[in-house]
């Protein structure tokens, strides 16, 4: 499943540590989500989407394969 977390974070010129602090997760978890190694739980997916003012389906796309996967 592809997600747009990295793009959205870079658009806002945030570091992975900043995003991790904003979402109350670890920096390692942000790295795992961005690289597609970890699929966040539904509550965390909503938190991410709300943080970027997007809907969950705009943030996570089940039809798109992760690049390099």
């Amino acid at each position, binding site marked *: 499943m592809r997600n747009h977390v990295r793009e959205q974070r870079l658009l806002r010129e945030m570091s992975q540590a900043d995003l991790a602090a904003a979402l*109350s*997760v*670890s*920096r*390692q*978890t942000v790295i*795992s989500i961005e690289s597609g190694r970890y699929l*966040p739980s539904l509550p*965390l997916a909503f938190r991410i989407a709300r943080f970027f003012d997007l809907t969950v389906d705009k943030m996570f796309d089940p039809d798109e394969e992760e690049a390099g996967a």
Partner: protein
Amino acid sequence: MTRFIRPRLRKPLRRAVAGLGIAGAWAIGGGQSWWLAIVIAIVVVCSTAGWYVWAGQDTDEGALLGSRADERQQQVGQRARALAGTVAMVAAYAGLLVTLAVNRADAWPFAIMLFATGLGYLFGLSSYGSGEPAADEDADAGDQARAAAGG
């Protein structure tokens, strides 16, 4: 009770208590090698300091040790515990097989370990499973929707 202990210290302290328990048991066992209990206690205290330092690091292992793991790190910890449980079960089974073949009188600790791990698995299934299947609410909802549409 653990609420009064700093999160970073909880797991290292728990391991220290477990380790000092072994040292105490060794000391109670007595014999000529009773002094090894002191060595064990020193090793436990030193390793506890090491665990505490590790618990402060910005890694998955540090977060787990420091009791501040997020959902992914908790999942990692659960998988690691599941693997440890599987290894314990396989080791108990192998020990049981070997002792049954060599000296049956020594087999009971392995049998108890195998029984305990198996029982723990079954208890986990009953505790974390969904239990009794719920009533088919979708069917009821469908009936009501059809009735509403028809009426």
